[in-house]
């Protein structure tokens, strides 16, 4: 365990050096959130039917989504990608480590560090100037925090799974182009999930990507009452276990079958 934590810290320290990227991210996310807020405000002003969530809640959804954007499994660790492509992954195996845990630790760093660097300034600016509301209660805030941590583990499991898929696809171009769009859409970043049509809701509420930002956002805004928090934390936990199990199983198969080339 200590080994993986040490790798995690080393990786986090490296990622913390990308300050310019974080600054650009903050600017972009604020810009997008403003545009989305305007669009939603215009829609809400024109509609006569009652909406599943209020405009204030919808705006909070948007700001939370933009602040936490980097948490989505939209990219992967370039070094690991290169390792799979050129076969150097075999050299990782000369160390007494479990490869899945190593990759999971590295994926956790790539999910959380950029998110932390971006979300704090966006949060502060949004609360001060752009109508991001505070959580509805302290308990809601606590539930939001816990489910956000679960969301990070969930997103990390998906990120790891994407890297494992490279064992079969090698190039990974396809999945890497697809992933940002799938992640944005299914996690409610394009349009908040409650605003999708009624008939899509059963599917949307069972797919794992809603567990990353949508569930924490619903707890924050009170769309999900705090009393039901345990049910949703359980939902996240089950998906984490399923995806980690799947990743381990696929990696085991890949390592047994794949012929690492070289004389």
């Amino acid at each position: 365990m200590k080994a993986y934590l040490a790798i995690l810290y080393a990786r986090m320290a490296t990622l913390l050096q990308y300050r310019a990227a974080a600054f650009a991210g903050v600017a972009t996310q604020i810009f997008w959130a403003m545009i989305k807020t305007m669009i939603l405000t215009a829609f809400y002003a024109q509609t006569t039917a009652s909406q599943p969530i209020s405009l204030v809640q919808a705006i909070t959804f948007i700001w939370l989504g933009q602040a936490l954007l980097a948490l989505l499994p939209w990219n992967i660790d370039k070094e690991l990608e290169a390792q799979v492509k050129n076969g150097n992954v075999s050299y990782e195996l000369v160390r007494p480590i479990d490869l899945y845990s190593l990759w999971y630790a590295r994926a956790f760093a790539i999910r959380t560090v950029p998110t932390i660097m971006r979300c704090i300034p966006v949060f502060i600016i949004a609360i001060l100037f752009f109508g991001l509301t505070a959580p509805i209660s302290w308990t809601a805030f606590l539930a939001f925090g816990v489910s956000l941590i679960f969301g990070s583990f969930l997103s990390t499991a998906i990120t790891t799974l994407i890297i494992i898929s490279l064992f079969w696809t090698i190039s990974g171009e396809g999945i890497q182009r697809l992933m940002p769009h799938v992640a944005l859409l299914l996690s409610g970043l394009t349009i908040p999930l409650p605003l999708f049509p009624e008939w899509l809701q059963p599917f949307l509420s069972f797919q794992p990507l809603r567990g990353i930002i949508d569930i924490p956002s619903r707890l924050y805004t009170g769309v999900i009452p705090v009393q039901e928090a345990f049910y949703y934390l359980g939902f996240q936990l089950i998906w984490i276990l399923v995806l980690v199990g799947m990743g381990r199983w696929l990696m085991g198969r890949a390592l047994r079958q794949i012929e690492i080339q070289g004389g």
Partner: protein
Amino acid sequence: MSIISVDALSKEFLIPKRKQGFFGSLVSLFSQEYEKKTALDRISFSIDEGELIGYIGPNGAGKSTTVKILSGILVPNGGSVKVMGRIPWEHRIETVRELGVVFGQRTQLWWDLPVIESFELLKDIYNISDNAYKTALHALTETLELSNLMHIPVRQLSLGQRMRCDIAASLLHSPKILFLDEPTIGLDAVSKLAVRDFIRHLNKERKVTVMLTTHDMDDIESLCNRVIILNEGQIYLDGTLSTLRKKLSPERRLIVDLINENDTVSTPYAVFVKQEGHRVWLSFDPTKITPTELITSITSKHSISDLYVENPPIEEIIAKFYRNANL
């Protein structure tokens, strides 16, 4: 007692066959054919504790494949392997705990981190106790002269510096067995000697069993008393260096740079190989004439600007060996 034993080890790779042209690619989409390539063909050997073995052979002979199987990375198609009593691919993590592995072609250190931080990560990965780590680090820093390099990120090190750090990294956990894959490749003469000295010291003083893969015949000559020659997945020779010498012609090369381009060298003690401008290649048999005698006889007749003695490259020696074996 043998620390590594390999019996009838075989490994085949399936390589997708590429068909030529557009039509061929189209066919491959629907029915992919594979070509079987035998990397190792029922090889057997055993290594005793404390041995220093040269494992040599041309590119593609199956050297790295053997090392990868011994470290539990690859699963063979047949045969049995025991490394310190364990089957490596079934107990990869326990097996690699006892192994140190150095690949000359690539670093195992973290590229962006200062050397000392890579070492500290390894301490956690191998779960080395504070005391053992301190002792090992101190000893390695002294013998490999690393104290000035500790705080430099790996990417800024020269190849020789990096290699010394890589070797230190592979030894922090005091492994019983060390696999060295071309540890002197690309190194300058001073670094080469330093690395060789250290390997010798490690084997003599600390009784580490070393398996050395290299194309550098000088590495083999100065370090190993036993060599295993591999070619096309089979063992061609397993024996001492003197057996190898007896089997091969003991040819050496003397390269002479003449001052006068129009001069030619002729001596009864050596065979003229070729001449390119000022430079002349001669071949001689060191059992018949020592290099010193040969050089004296040449310098007495010709004025020369430079000269050096060279071993024929390992590939050439092995190629010769195969030709002999075929006769």
